[in-house]
């Protein structure tokens, strides 16, 4: 009897430590975002005093009003939406179409094509040959330079291929007996069964496009084609002096304050769409991650 109570005491201690650890981790993951949100909606006087640590103090939507009025931000935001929508749709469609033949066991080129794809995961031409290629094929300073080189990710392709392999082959045979062409079989039978992986792929590609800045930095000299991440880079990183932006006619101090808050508001406006979407796809993550890392 005595032993049992002692044991449950140690178990309780163990659980308390586990819970504390988990809560600390979660808090750390959450804190920067909460702080950013609080800074963006707090009253300007509190931002000036710099006394916000967690919860917002006061309330003001001034920063968001500035964001909504700023033409440059909106231009960049619209560009990002364009890149994300066009890039994601093309990527998901092409990845699924390409994954299907690779997943067919009887396909005679299957192993050769797999090698062809997998080799690119471990070896690449690198930065400069890629840069010159983009120049040579006329994509430099074209919006497509942010989409074309990223259309199919070898990794995602293999994940999709593994997923399609997990769908019973008997379905394909049955469809063939009923006279369906391989295209019909793919579109009518395999695609509807692939919803989970399509959801994961859409999220992966969309996040990649939404968060990408490097292609724009490399290939797009014109600022009017830049995505929002390039704008963020400009105001968050390149101009840490807080003085080089804003087109308004406010006085120096007020203006730098507004800029300070504006940064946080732009961050919130930028990350919100993604943060609003991923929890809905979350239940499929495990599948996507597992297939990707355990199967070839």
């Amino acid at each position, binding site marked *: 009897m005595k032993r049992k109570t002692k044991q449950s005491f140690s178990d309780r201690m*163990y659980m308390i430590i586990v819970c504390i650890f988990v809560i600390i981790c979660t808090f750390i993951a959450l804190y920067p975002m909460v702080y950013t949100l609080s800074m963006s909606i707090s009253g300007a006087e509190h931002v000036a005093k710099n006394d916000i640590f967690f919860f917002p103090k006061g309330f003001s939507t001034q920063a968001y009003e500035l964001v909504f009025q700023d033409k440059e931000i909106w231009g960049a935001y619209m560009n990002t939406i364009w890149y994300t929508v066009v890039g994601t749709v093309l990527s998901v469609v092409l990845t699924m179409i390409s994954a299907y033949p690779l997943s067919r066991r*009887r396909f*005679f080129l299957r192993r050769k094509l797999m090698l062809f794809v997998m080799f690119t995961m471990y070896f690449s031409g690198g930065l400069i*040959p890629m840069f010159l290629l983009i120049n040579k094929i006329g994509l430099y300073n074209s919006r497509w330079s942010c989409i074309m080189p990223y259309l199919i990710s070898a990794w995602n392709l293999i994940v999709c291929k593994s997923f399609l392999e997990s769908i019973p082959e008997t379905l394909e045979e049955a469809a063939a007996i009923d006279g369906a062409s391989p295209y019909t079989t793919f579109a009518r039978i395999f695609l509807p069964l692939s919803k989970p992986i399509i959801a994961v792929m859409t999220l992966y590609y969309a996040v990649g496009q939404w968060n990408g800045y490097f292609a724009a930095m490399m290939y797009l000299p014109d600022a009017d084609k830049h995505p929002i991440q390039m704008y963020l880079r400009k105001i968050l*990183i390149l101009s840490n002096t807080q003085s080089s932006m804003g087109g308004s006619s406010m006085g120096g101090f007020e203006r730098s304050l507004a800029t300070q808050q504006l940064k946080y508001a732009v961050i919130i406006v930028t990350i919100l769409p993604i943060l609003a979407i991923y929890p809905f796809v979350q239940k499929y993550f495990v599948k996507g991650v597992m297939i990707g890392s355990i199967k070839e």
Partner: protein
Amino acid sequence: MKKKQKCACSIQKTPLRKLIYRDRHLLVMCIPLILFFLIFAYLPMAGLSLAFVDYKPVLGIGGSPFVGLENFEKVFRNPFFPRLLKNTFLIGMETLVWSFPIPILFALAVNEIRNRKFQKVIQTISYMPYFISIVVIVGLLSNFLSPTVGVINQVYSAITGNDPISFMTEPKYFRTIYVVSHIWQTFGWNSIIYLAALAGVDIALYESAKVDGANRLQQMIHITLPCIMPTIIIMLILNMGNIMSVGFEKIILMYSPSTYEVADVISTYTYRRGIVQSDYSFGTAIGLFNSAINMMFIVGANWFSKKFSDTSLW
């Protein structure tokens, strides 16, 4: 990780023409894939020949004078070369050492929580940083660590009474900031794989351990941990293959000339020399050198993995 598939013997017997006809639909579906990888993966590889010529844009790759290994000699003689190699290795190594164990600990802890709803909320929150862009993360870093408005410096000054530190421009803090922010961004996401492995542990094992009088800590050490050991080993090997492939996307945003001495890695130097200064041949040579090292690490890790854990990438 991979099962050897035996080719169906009939394949060798069927003539190619027949195979092409039989699989014509599948072949059509492969066209975009083949075109894409040819253009955006294999053409740049052909472009690696830049490394062996003295590239003059007017002459093109074919017309530029062939110089053999001269560009590589320049790379190895470059005064910054040892520094680049050292920084790349140290950043890659420290990232691996510090960011590898945390997702495992986190997954073990989350797994102990029996309340499903609480568990799910924790997972959702911990995945969040993974979806935030590098630009925003570095932007937040420079805001949080700023000596004038940064919340970290406020706390630091309040506790120690010292003057605020300009963390982002101080070389000795660079790697720490890089690694800690990396952990922050990835620990939740990387725990997914371990959580999935944990979900597969046989419950009967715990039952019998309970009968034997093991407490929860003992169950964790003697049952849970050994059960996910194979996953841990695979992930460790995979990560070891990537030590030298430190990416430029984050460092380019984080570093400044004042931190080059610790922050400049092969890929960032390639970018500055190759793209910013348009020194294409030199840039290609150093890039090829980096690719070759990466390849060596991956092949090495794979060999190691095959030998000791029966799993391999190919």
